């Protein structure tokens, strides 16, 4: 499995070369922690992290 990368702007995880959430190409292979957001409108975690789109996110991106 190809190693996933995290977007430096929105922290979304992707295996491609473009962030699926913000379409940025500034991706980092150095990240830790995973947050899966399914319902950003009702999720406290998504609210705290200001996440608005359901996707897989990294917790920390370097």
């Amino acid at each position: 499995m190809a190693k996933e990368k995290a977007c430096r702007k929105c922290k979304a995880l992707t295996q491609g070369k473009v962030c699926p959430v913000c379409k940025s190409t500034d991706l980092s292979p150095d990240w830790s922690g995973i947050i899966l957001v399914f319902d950003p409108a009702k999720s406290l975690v998504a609210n705290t992290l200001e996440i608005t789109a359901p996707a897989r996110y990294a917790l920390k991106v370097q």
Partner: protein
Amino acid sequence: MSDKLKDSQEDDLGDISFEDEQGMEAAEQPAEAEAEVKPAEQPAQVQVEAPKPAPVSDKPASDSKFFAIRTTGGQERMVADMLYTKVTAKKIGIRSVMVLDSFKGYIIVEAPDSNVAYEGLAGIRHVRGQIRGDLPFKDIEGYLVKKPTVTELSIDDTVEVIAGPFKGMKAKITRVDYEKQEATVVLLDSPYQIPVTVDANYLKKAPH
């Protein structure tokens, strides 16, 4: 409904007062939830990238509960991936799932109630069980909101290097690059004054 059932099972004492509290909460919450949602949505229509953060944090607006789910060690990501596939396919009411590196052997599931969380986890490999009851959001918030270390650093501060080849040494900051999250330091333990640029996350402010 299921909440009340579960709560009444767990809490044998003081049923009447507990019911009253529940009733009050139930009456208050919808009003709060509406008040929370409206201000966040309105600026979003006008301007997508609002500089000010949404009015969130302190008071929990939603009825989310957090459950710590025990998994086989090292399989947390695997469990999360399987859960992601299942929840997206079956539209289960789980709101989010967290895999924290500092929380080995567990994943944290956010759901409106325990039945929803366990429904999602049923049949998933490497799930070993769950901690009884739910986790308060305060416990989890600390892992989510991370102030970058670089914001705490300033020139002439004495710091300790906590990782990398200079681990354990004390140093003095000569320059801080807030964008790159790097700091240039002079090692105090070294006989020579060599400036070294290190990641700001490798530095910890030393007590005076």
